[in-house]
């Protein structure tokens, strides 16, 4: 891809070194990678900032020489563990890219069934296919940086990658989605009769879902200082069941520290 990206990018007049970047997909819908391609308006600028050396979904060329590895997806099989470890050895910076990589994503809902044999039989009958408990990337190798979201928000990806290319640090908000939702002057979803995890979910998406009048499902995981009992009280006050809250809390795996105790007594299947 070299020739197409040879132009030197500058930032405040200073030439920017273009890091070699590779994208890798594990168990996922590949939507987070697709968000990069979905960036039509700024895709070419983005490509001039980094040197993409491996991106199987969009290019045939491959190289094992990379500095930053973006890992999309959760880890669900032994071969994925081996592949991920090999990538970790080559990468200077390993990025968990999206909710599946950060928390296991919707895939980790599989883990709530005590009988994993039942899970396999339900889908594949008597011809089982290899699988193991769904793990986020940091359960297998050390992770240097997380980019949250299902899907990741392309503006946020660009901002973070720009910071990486410039050698600046990346700081995620500790405040909840509610803060961004209020800033957008939205009507509170609870007042519209919709459950919402905005009060306890980490911001950074600019209240993406609540702005579309759809309650937050917590795809970015917990904000700082989560008050889970207060969240339960809000849900109860507005007439939502324990199960409706649990559905949302356990959807992407970010709240797994809380769902274990909250889930007691809920039918597993």
């Amino acid at each position: 891809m070299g020739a197409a990206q040879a132009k030197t990018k500058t930032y405040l007049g200073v030439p920017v070194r273009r890091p070699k970047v590779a994208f890798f997909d594990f168990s996922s819908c590949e939507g987070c990678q697709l968000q990069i391609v979905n960036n039509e308006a700024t895709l070419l600028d983005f490509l001039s900032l980094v040197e993409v050396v491996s991106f199987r979904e969009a290019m045939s060329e491959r190289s094992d020489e990379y500095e930053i590895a973006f890992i999309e997806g959760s880890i669900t099989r032994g071969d994925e563990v081996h592949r991920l470890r090999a990538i970790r050895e080559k990468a200077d910076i390993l990025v968990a890219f999206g909710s599946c990589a950060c928390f296991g994503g919707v895939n980790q809902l599989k883990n709530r069934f005590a009988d994993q044999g039942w899970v396999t039989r339900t889908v594949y009958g008597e011809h089982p296919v290899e699988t193991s408990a769904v793990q986020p990337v940091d359960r297998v190798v050390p992770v240097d940086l997380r980019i949250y979201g299902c899907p990741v928000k392309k503006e946020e990806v660009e901002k973070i990658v720009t910071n990486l290319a410039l050698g600046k640090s990346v700081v995620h908000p500790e405040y909840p989605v509610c803060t961004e939702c209020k800033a957008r002057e939205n009507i509170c979803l609870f007042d519209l009769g919709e459950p919402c995890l905005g009060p306890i979910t980490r911001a950074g998406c600019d209240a993406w879902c609540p702005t579309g009048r759809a309650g937050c499902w917590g795809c970015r995981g917990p904000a700082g200082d989560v008050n889970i009992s207060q969240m339960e009280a809000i849900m109860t006050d507005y007439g939502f069941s324990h199960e409706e809250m649990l559905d949302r809390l356990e959807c992407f795996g970010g709240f797994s520290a809380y769902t274990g105790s909250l889930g007691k007594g809920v039918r597993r299947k």
Partner: protein
Amino acid sequence: MTITIAIHHVARVEGHGTIKIAIQDGELLDARWEVVETPRFFEALLVGKRWENAPYITSRICGICSIGHTLASIRAVENAFGISPTVQTSKLRLLLKHMETLQSHLLHLYFLVAPDFFNKGSIVPLVESHPDIVTMAAGMKLLANDLCDCIGGRRLHPTRTVVGGFTMLPDKKELSRFRGRLNDVTADLVKTVELFGTFTLPSFERETEYVSLRGEDCYPFIGGDLVSTDGVRRREDEYVQMTNEYGVEQSTSKWCRLSRGSFAVGALARINNNAAFLHPAARDVATGFGLAPVVCNPFMNTIAQLVECVHVVLESITLIEELLDSRWEAPRQAVEPREARGIGAVEVPRGILYHCYEFDSGGKIVKADCVIPTGQNHANIQHDLEALVTRYAAEGKSDAEITKLAEMLVRAYDPCISCSVH
């Protein structure tokens, strides 16, 4: 002399698939299309979940066709609970669906397929060599995605699409601006047709059964009867008899069969069954490419997608005009869960997608089944691959040429492998 070709994880397709070929003295020993993608067990992880989880979770089956999954899932839930969408909801859903079709087809045409005809590994070198083409492709795709944002709240894993309708409606002024942008795109589509007219597709053909939804009075996208070019016709709720899924050793995705060992779904299947319902301008494009049903060249699926781009853009302009001429009604209907089974069949970019759920009286999912278009295509890809390698090996083509043709064949189906394994 024995030649073995192994392409691990074919590039420029969604998901992980591998081609293995062995040729001895110009004769095929073995050709295999293997799907090694990791399963995520969506059908199991829905069990015990309340109904409103279904569209939300299943949209995560696929990043490219998440809108199609959401709409198939919603249709299955609505069919189970006896909800008929309003005319307004149906039109908005169809418009959203059209824009997903457009962005997905353009992704395939320009980002995945076109580099083969420029002898490049990706679209990136074309930024330097053919900047006009890349800018035009990106601009058209951006329009489709922007309109998905406008209606569904998000281009990927939509937020506003719910059982019963939408959480909120698009702004009419904004919708009106999209009518103008769609009009502008028709000129770019003419240029796209000209560009693809300069590409020479492989002339390979193999007799195939093509399966799609059947339009009653319009080109089919959401719901309807299931038909095949071999004359099979079934109702939407008889999808199991249409798909006949079964497990195979070489694939973590199930395979399907109907009248023969395999069948094909997708844009080519839709046109082979429904050419009469195409917008006249789209039909002219089809005619120009010699796409007269029934066409059995799998590489023509790419051209069929191009024809559909023209169709969906022109139909979307009409849909927007109709929506602008009507008064907005309530966005959403109430939902009363009940013990029932519901099926939703939707034509997504790669073919018919089925979602089926069984609910208990409280609206909890007891059983879930999703049959994915690429899963329906895998057996056909395998059979095409065998026939293609047999022919080109006998013609004495080099292993490099055979490798490229085999990859191009798989790519022509525009497989969505993660989706097919799910």
